[in-house]
């Protein structure tokens, strides 16, 4: 038996390891536990994974199965924070009581308070008895509109005509600087077959990562995105059909104005910055607004409205996957293994709707659902809008897309969340009808 197989033989499901460690903490953490004594899903998602195991830096803790020594390290890490967990539980109980007293009902209490409670536990220990009003101020801070201040700064800044004129000048010159080269696109697109393909051995997984490394250094995504500025004929797809732009070729966006429903590449600079600020809720290090705006002007001129090559390459990979997806079609064919997996999943999810009497055989069960069904038929459009928004966020925060597994997970995750959205809408349309 090879060493790899030995490791597999003793590997433990990571959630089972977490569960065991949690139970070893003993009493005092009931509010963070389910009825069966295991940790709540949000305890894992909001406290244990990010703050105790710190998956970002301890990637060995994030595999679905972990070897015995890793399992032991996880166990020790969790049990080692037992006191902080008990203190976090006490904080949560206190915050919940205060929430009720202050009649706060917005947001999911676990989702919002769990990380704060753990932070308080680490910095302050258990809550003071009697409470000195600290809980109330913590709640006020959480429920204050945290993004409001930055957005107000943006609004004031962008109401200055001079600022808008300057940004406009910058935009015109940056736009001119982006030119497509004449390199051939074939090698990039064939490399995608590996990246989006199946890998069933360690060497294949490693090869896939190497190919992706090469692809994010390839000029093709840049050239395709730049070509979209110049002539629709130079792209293998139509950016209008993909829902990325409302016109072909893609024109420069406005500095300000327009609406949120604008296609991604048509959104104005200020709207893009506003979206950044809205998504920046949890972040402390927010660059100042004028700098964000200047940067965004250059970004919106960059191919695909994304600065970094790895984001541009991810978007092109996403386009190639998206055009094959059709949740309501039994006959759709897919060119990549990853697209095939996602399509199979989407089919199963559509089937759940059918089994729940929200859809007839792949069609509306009430005429009112027709619009959503039509949207679902053009799945690439909402898929790419959402993928673009995620990539835009990563581009702003300079979070890499260099790990192929991470990129594949992103492409899958976007499909899942678009599918959930659509299914929710299909259900809502039906409920509207029933109520009406």
């Amino acid at each position, binding site marked *: 038996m090879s060493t790899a197989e030995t490791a597999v033989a003793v590997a433990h499901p990571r959630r089972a390891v977490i569960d065991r460690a949690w139970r070893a903490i003993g009493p005092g953490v009931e509010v963070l536990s389910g009825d069966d004594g295991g940790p709540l899903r949000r305890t894992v998602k909001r406290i244990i994974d990010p703050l105790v195991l710190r998956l970002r830096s301890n990637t060995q803790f994030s595999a679905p199965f972990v070897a015995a020594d890793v399992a032991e390290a996880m166990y020790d890490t969790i049990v080692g924070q037992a006191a902080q967990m008990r203190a976090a539980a006490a904080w949560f109980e206190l915050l919940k009581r205060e929430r009720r007293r202050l009649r706060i009902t917005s947001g999911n209490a676990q989702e919002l308070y769990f990380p704060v409670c753990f932070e308080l536990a680490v910095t302050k220990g258990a809550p003071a008895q009697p409470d000195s009003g600290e809980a109330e101020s913590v709640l006020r801070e959480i429920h204050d509109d945290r993004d409001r201040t930055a957005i107000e700064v943006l609004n004031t800044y962008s109401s200055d005509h001079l600022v808008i004129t300057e940004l406009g000048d910058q935009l015109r010159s940056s736009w001119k600087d982006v030119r497509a080269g004449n390199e051939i696109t074939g090698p990039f697109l064939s490399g995608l077959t590996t990246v989006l393909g199946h890998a069933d051995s360690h060497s294949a997984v490693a090869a896939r990562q190497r190919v992706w490394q090469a692809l994010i250094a390839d000029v093709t995504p840049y050239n395709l995105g730049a070509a979209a500025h110049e002539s629709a004929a130079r792209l293998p797809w139509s950016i209008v059909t993909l829902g990325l732009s409302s016109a072909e070729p893609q024109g420069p966006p406005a500095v300000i104005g327009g609406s949120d429903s604008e296609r991604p590449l048509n959104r104005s600079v200020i709207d893009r910055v506003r979206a950044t600020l809205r998504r920046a809720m949890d972040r402390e290090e927010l660059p100042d607004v004028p700098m964000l705006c200047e940067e965004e002007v250059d970004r919106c001129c960059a191919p695909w409205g994304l600065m970094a090559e790895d984001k541009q390459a991810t978007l092109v990979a996403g386009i190639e996957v998206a055009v094959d997806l059709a949740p309501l079609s039994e006959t759709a064919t897919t060119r990549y293994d990853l697209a095939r997996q996602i399509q199979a999943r989407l089919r*199963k999810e559509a089937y*759940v709707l059918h089994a729940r*009497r929200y859809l007839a055989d792949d069609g509306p*069960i009430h005429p009112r659902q027709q619009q959503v069904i039509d949207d679902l038929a053009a799945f690439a459009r909402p898929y790419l809008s959402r993928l673009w928004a995620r990539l835009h966020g990563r581009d702003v925060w300079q979070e890499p897309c260099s790990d192929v597994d991470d990129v594949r997970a992103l492409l899958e995750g976007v499909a899942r969340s678009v599918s959930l959205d659509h299914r929710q809408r299909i259900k809502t349309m039906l409920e509207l009808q029933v109520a009406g």
Partner: protein
Amino acid sequence: MSDSGLWSTGPTVAPSPLHAVLEVSGAVLSWTVDDPSADPQITFTDPASADWLWRVLGEDGHRAVASTVDQAPPDEATAVDLTGVDVLPGTLDPLRRLAFGHWLRRWWPASQRDGIATLDAALLDAEIAILTAAADDFFSDDTFDSDVAEVLRPHVAALNAHVQEGDPRVVELVEKCTELADDVGIVFDTPAWSSRRDDYALAAGGDTGRTTSTTIASGVGSVRWSAVPAGVFDAAENTVNWSVESADDAATATVRVELSGLGSPNGVSVRLRSGSLGGDGALGADGRAAFPVVDSDQQAVSESAAWGHDWRATELTIGADGGETAQTRERIRTFARSRLAAPANDAYLAEILAAESDY
């Protein structure tokens, strides 16, 4: 077993609407509703996200399944035998009950004509919300119907109204929900209003006597449940009455469908096909529709042509095309009657109350 590109385990379940489904993190579970002893079929949509599997199969079982489904499933159906991997007794019971609750919500064959009492939607969803919160570990933020707030939100007023009625079982259920609502961010103290609808009892008459008409042909048909929204139509057979009448020398089809529940049939399509003749319409809020009968060229059919037509093979479709067979519907009614006759241990409060009202 590999099924259209996804791995699945367990027995093949009966076709919809005979199965209760539940979407959990990374998998879809389905059970045949009237076979309580059978294992579910588990179809993996994303094996890596099914991090709860060790609870159900044990750690060894989880490992065995994970290493199999890690391979891409082949396109053609293949079976892989996982000897020694079994569902740990009882571990799936809460999920089955939850899937069944969702099934009750959608497929319970309520019918005045058949005497199958309606289940209270608010109480059902209240219990579903509590079970969903308790099974929290099996869901993710991307799983369908697992958002407790969304399940509860539409029923706040109805649940408060129920408390006024004072049944201690209801009061206990609503209290649990109030606590849950607090945590998930919905307000539970809106004033009560009556959730009962009495105005939809089939009002005969009202639209008679516009023109004098002669009936050329008439018949009955049945609604196929999978083709129409839940909570609108009486679930009995032969609830569709149709007739072809002549008025002003043109043939007109009139259709009336028996209603049940709070939903409105407004806009649900109706199709009549009889050889080369046919017609299309949509139901109004009263469950009726009237539309012209046309020939294959979409031309109006005259009274004399209508008299000359053989109407025996007329087919009437309510809602979408397709749907289950009459036998399937009968099997579900039999199952529903047995649930009402002797509420099972895992019965929902809404079922128990329906059984009690059934004297």
